[in-house]
């Protein structure tokens, strides 16, 4: 066999150099193709940044207004939590809180008492969720309700009053200063009614709070339900540096000898929402991938044209001994470089746009009005730049562009040298 030891290939650096210079042969065509890719990448990057921002804000919203980082329940409560039962309550709250606060990674704790209630404005009667919160001392250390008061003022300890979700108030046609009647059933089954003034309205962006809930001081809730000194849950906020899983495990260890208690992290509490997020991520990922694929298909045409124009050159290279695989590598490289060029351009503009909106925010009401977009977020969202996603999608564009170049590259590599050299 002849010439077995001769590689017949170019060095990778030479292929890169040659590929890059070949892109500059027909600059206008290269720029048009790269710009198409850049636009697709720009759109995808901005969309991804928005989705990451919305997701992050959703998680923050859940933690700040609904779930905290974790909650401690009496055994049996969590499985029946949708019914807001009063049969599984926590007592000895001070001792329990002292224990939990001693756990590394825990920043604050607060008891809450959730219950089902009916609220009447004198004309209509609606079923909704009442939440007793510890006004003095701890609730605002765990939750961010005071920042969500959009009208009136926050609750005051020892004073009668309730905070109502903005959506619920709109449904009732009531406002700050109006009185409503709260009707509940005690644990023993007796009805209890109390007239309370609306001291303020809360708008959190979380439909569960805004459209279905009202908040009252813990002692009023305990009084109405006949559960003095009790709570249905102990909400826990972690310190910023704490790792969720480790801290939950620590808390579980700390309370296991005290009594039968369940510790639940916020992701576990919002299992359905997290599953929905995963499904949305997959769907959006597929959609965005298809978008990039459509954009890089233009590269197929560009490389096809380039290989056609350079048929004689291909013949000459093959005559000198470059194997078909070398020709294929060269055109794949040109395709990938076009994709990477477009991807880099698109990414740079996307970062600039995202950085701008990450500062000033994007007003969702201007885009969607009051429509529920499926995420618990407030009116203004802030896109987030994720460098790992940015780099990954840029590289993905390069890979897809190389794949899009495969057909013309393979076609060029199959030339018969003598025929290619005759090409006019």
């Amino acid at each position, binding site marked *: 066999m002849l010439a077995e030891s*001769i590689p017949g290939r170019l060095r990778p650096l030479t292929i890169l150099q040659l590929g890059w210079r070949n892109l*500059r042969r027909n600059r206008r065509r290269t720029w048009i193709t790269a710009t198409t890719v850049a636009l697709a990448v720009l759109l995808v990057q901005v969309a991804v940044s928005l989705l990451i921002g919305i997701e992050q804000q959703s998680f923050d919203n859940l933690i700040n207004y609904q779930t905290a980082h974790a909650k401690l329940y009496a055994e049996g409560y969590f499985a029946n939590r949708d019914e807001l039962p009063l049969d599984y309550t926590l007592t000895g709250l001070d001792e329990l809180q002292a224990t939990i606060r001693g756990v590394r990674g825990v920043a604050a704790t607060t008891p809450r008492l959730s219950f089902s209630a009916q609220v009447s404005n004198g004309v209509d009667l609606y079923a909704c969720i009442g939440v007793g919160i510890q006004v003095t001392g701890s609730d605002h250390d765990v939750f961010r309700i005071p920042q969500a008061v959009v009208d009136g003022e926050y609750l005051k300890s020892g004073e009668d009053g309730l905070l109502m979700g903005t959506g619920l108030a709109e449904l009732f046609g009531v406002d700050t200063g109006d009185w409503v009647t709260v009707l509940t059933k005690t644990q023993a089954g007796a009805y209890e009614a109390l007239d309370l003034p609306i001291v303020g309205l809360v708008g959190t962006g979380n439909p569960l709070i805004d459209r279905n809930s009202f908040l009252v001081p813990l002692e009023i809730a305990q009084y109405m339900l006949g559960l003095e000194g009790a709570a249905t849950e102990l909400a826990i906020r972690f310190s910023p540096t704490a790792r969720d899983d480790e801290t939950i495990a620590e808390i579980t260890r700390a309370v296991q000898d005290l009594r039968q208690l369940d510790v639940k992290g916020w992701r576990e509490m919002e299992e359905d929402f997290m599953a929905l997020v995963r499904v949305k991520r997959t769907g959006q990922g597929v959609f965005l991938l298809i978008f990039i694929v459509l954009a890089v298909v233009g590269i197929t045409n560009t490389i096809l044209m380039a290989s056609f124009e350079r048929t004689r050159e291909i013949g000459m290279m093959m005559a000198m001994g470059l194997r078909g695989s070398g020709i294929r590598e060269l055109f794949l490289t040109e395709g990938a470089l076009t994709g990477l060029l477009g991807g880099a351009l698109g990414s740079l503009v996307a970062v600039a746009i995202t950085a701008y909106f990450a500062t000033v925010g994007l007003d969702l009401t201007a885009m969607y009005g009051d429509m529920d977009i499926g995420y618990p977020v407030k009116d203004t969202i802030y896109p987030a730049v994720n460098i790992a996603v940015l780099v990954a999608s840029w590289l993905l564009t390069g890979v897809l562009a190389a794949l899009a170049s495969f057909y013309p590259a393979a076609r060029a590599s199959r030339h018969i040298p003598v025929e290619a050299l005759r090409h006019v």
Partner: protein
Amino acid sequence: MTVARLIDVHKTYMVGRVRVPAVRGVTLDIEHGAFMSIAGPSGSGKTTILNLLGALDTPTSGTVQIGDGTTDGLSLKTLADFRNTHLGFVFQTFNLIPVLTVRENVDFPLQLQGIGNKRERNERVMKILQEVGLGDLVDRRPTELSGGQQQRVAVARALVKGPRLVLADEPTANLDSETAGEIMALMQMMNEKHGTTFIFSTHDPLVMERASRLVRLHDGRVASDEGGNGGRHAS
């Protein structure tokens, strides 16, 4: 010593449904160091003979032997390796890579030979470029050179890897007579200095005069095969 041999070679092309015989039973022995011209009118089979000797094409029948090997039954990949090892080409239209500099164009076949040492490659490239008189133009692109200079680069590119055989298909056809004379003188000088075997096709009598051997073709057959005054004496 024979460097290449054609033994009763036939080559027939199909043009649509018509069989067109381009070479009809050519037998040639090419001695080492020859400076051989293949002449003949258009359609006489000059380019086909060069393509067969250059392993760019395979015969319909007969044998093409280069050195110790033949091109019979070799795959495209093996033929590529064969050309890479044994052959250098000079084309009528120069066929330089326009995006590479003179230095890089001449370096190209050395990379294909797998010579990884850049310093070694650079020394060989500079030496051959000095020999062809382009030592001062190494960083220019082909478009910045005259036709004669481009063909000098092509000659340097063909010779830099020290091939057994350099095949030149009408190397002076795109040049004026003065430049054509310069290119022929250059190839003749390289033939005499390095002993490299040159085979070139032409229909220019001034070029034929420089050959050490002149083979005339007519209708795909050897019409005459005679010695010439130019070039190095074959061994």
